[in-house]
């Protein structure tokens, strides 16, 4: 029989028992829908999580410290540091090193942590708060997603972004602050005597010199224009410390030379050449998958480097298992649906026994009869698959909608928790057709094997 005649006959047969076949097809659709909804949830949550994690700055960052033994300024350890310092002189984490890191492939940004506690003047009032330098690469960080106003216009712009709670201290309407000016009053650190200090060979002697006023502190003021207000603290993930309330572009913050809690170490780490060094640098890479390479390169250069990639890797494993289970449950529904197809077609054989007998008496081959049943199963698969993907997508949308409403009620931004990529839609339909055809296998071959004489005798 020709394909066109076959499909016409199949369509007619499906139409004749419209209720039963629709219900069967609906069963397939629900199976596909549950599969699609489950997997779209898996894909959506994974996309969301990896998106958030990337933006959090935890998994695309490498943290670098010098190999020099760490000792705080007030350390009571043995004063003979030469005994504990490694034989080879550890490399200082200075500006040269910073530029070398920046030149590595896949590195987006290299920046130190700049954070100081200071006074901010606004509207003739003084507020004490934490100021934090924000790297240019934080532009895409999730913390800046819901910004009121704008991100810094450039990495050297004399602009500030306020954290919402702090902004509320300044004005009952935080949004009205955008465009206004605040004045930072900070203590500038002058490394005037650092050369002399560096001449001291003994580190502890340097330290002592420092403690007794190796740096001179000068009071300064800086006017900054407020460009935005954000809800959360972008630094929470960056250095793991958090607590910033006024944010400046990191270049601007660096130029302030504001006295920081860890200044003392910075100068101690001068390595004898008097150049300032960094306690730690954060390197941002393009993609979390580049982290390992960059980490290795930095270790080879003689620095300590670590990242949170291992955590990310186990997270990916968790998601793969999660997807597997979601897919398994979804497939279960489709399996039940395929039983529905088998049932419907077996019922149809009983019901259409005589018809099969007539077809055979009129010259239909076993293959013709088999193809007819196969076509019917396939058609239910295609329609069920298409309908199911649509239904599954709608369920996903509904879940996203529901979650968004719930999150809004909790004052959280809405998220897209369900995502149906084209490959998921296409493979779900293919899967539905494959499952339906497999379900049609037994009924079709049973119909084909039917003895025409007995089929015609059947009343």
């Amino acid at each position, binding site marked *: 029989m020709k394909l066109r005649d076959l499909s016409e006959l199949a369509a007619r047969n499906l139409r004749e028992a419209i209720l039963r076949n629709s219900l069967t097809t609906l069963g397939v659709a629900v199976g596909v829908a549950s599969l699609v909804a489950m997997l779209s949830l898996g894909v959506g949550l994974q996309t969301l999580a990896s998106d958030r994690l990337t933006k959090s700055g935890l998994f695309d960052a490498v943290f670098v410290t010098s190999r020099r033994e760490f000792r705080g300024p007030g350390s009571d350890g043995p004063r003979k540091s030469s005994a504990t310092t490694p034989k080879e002189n550890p490399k200082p984490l200075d500006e040269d090193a910073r530029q070398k890191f920046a030149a590595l492939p896949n590195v987006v940004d290299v920046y130190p942590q700049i954070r100081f506690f200071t006074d901010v003047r606004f509207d003739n009032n003084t507020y004490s708060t934490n100021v934090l330098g924000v790297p240019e690469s934080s532009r895409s960080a999730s913390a800046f997603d819901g910004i009121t106003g704008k991100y810094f216009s450039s990495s050297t712009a004399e602009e500030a972004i306020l954290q919402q709670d702090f902004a509320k201290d300044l004005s009952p309407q935080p949004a009205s602050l955008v465009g206004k000016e605040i004045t930072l009053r900070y203590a500038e650190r002058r490394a005037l005597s650092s050369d002399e200090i560096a001449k001291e060979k003994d580190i502890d002697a340097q330290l002592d010199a420092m403690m007794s006023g190796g740096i001179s502190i000068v009071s300064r003021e800086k006017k900054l224009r407020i460009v935005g207000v954000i809800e959360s603290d972008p630094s929470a993930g960056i250095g793991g410390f958090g607590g910033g309330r006024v944010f400046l572009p990191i270049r601007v913050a660096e130029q302030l030379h504001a006295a920081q809690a860890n200044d003392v170490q910075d100068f101690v780490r001068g390595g004898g050449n008097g150049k300032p060094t960094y306690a730690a640098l954060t390197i941002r890479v393009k993609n979390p998958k580049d982290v390992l390479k960059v980490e290795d390169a930095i270790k080879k250069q003689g620095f300590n480097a670590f990242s949170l990639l291992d955590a990310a890797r186990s997270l990916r494993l968790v998601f793969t298992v999660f997807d597997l289970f979601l897919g398994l449950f979804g497939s279960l529904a489709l399996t039940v649906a395929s039983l529905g197809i088998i049932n419907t077609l077996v019922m149809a054989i009983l019901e259409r026994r*005589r018809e099969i007998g*007539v077809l055979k*008496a*009129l010259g239909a081959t076993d293959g*013709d009869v088999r193809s007819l049943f196969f076509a019917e199963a396939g058609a239910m698969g295609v329609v069920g698959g298409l309908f199911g993907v649509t239904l599954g997508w709608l369920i996903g949308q509904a879940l996203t909608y529901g979650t968004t409403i719930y999150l809004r009620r909790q004052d959280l931004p809405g998220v897209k928790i369900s995502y149906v990529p084209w490959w998921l839609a296409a493979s779900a339909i293919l899967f539905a057709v494959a499952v339906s055809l497999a379900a049609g296998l037994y009924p079709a071959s049973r119909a084909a094997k039917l003895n025409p*004489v007995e089929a015609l005798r059947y009343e």
Partner: protein
Amino acid sequence: MPSTPPLIHVDHVSRDYRLGETTIRAVNDLSLEICSGEFLALLGSSGSGKSTLLNLMAGLDRPTSGAIHVQEKNLAALDSQGLARYRRETVGMVFQSFNLLPRMTLEENVELPLRLAEIDRSERSRRVAQALDRVRLGARSKHRPSELSGGEQQRGALARALVNQPTILFADEPTGNLDSTTGEQILLLLREIQDTLGMTIIMVTHERPLAERFANRIAVLSDGKLIDHFAMQTGARA
């Protein structure tokens, strides 16, 4: 007639049905020759094996032993696809219970063998119309079987059996579900087809008088064996 080779040659054919321990021999070592253009009536009491023999000759069933040659081809040597092809191209069948497919209109029912034979669409409608005209049902082509009388349904079934222009028409008690006048109409139609198309007709019937009036030859079966076998005088057909 024996001078020309027979159209159908049933050669020592048996057909057994096994039911548990017992074996029923529905057709028992039966031999029969049917010539082209004949109208043969198979008579016999219920259970004598008439339908079984008809189905064997129509290629719907296979003998347990023996051979059936049609146009000098052995049906037993054909595989299931070959048998289907034989049914499609050489054979037309009419049943006691009409067996029109209830989901389809009369027209579509008649078209069915053409679909199975993969005849071109343009050719189909012409042949369907022709077949329906021959049984005088041209006006009812869009009706479903349930909207037709028994006689009309059987005429429709006849049109379906004829549409592929078969060589042999098999009819298993075609008048069994019809009143006597309607049955007579069907038999008149069969004889008209035999005369105009030169078709060979083999019909199973219970009604001896009808068989004697319309058939050329009568074969009587009993317990799967041919017990009587005679030609009607041409005069009886008038």
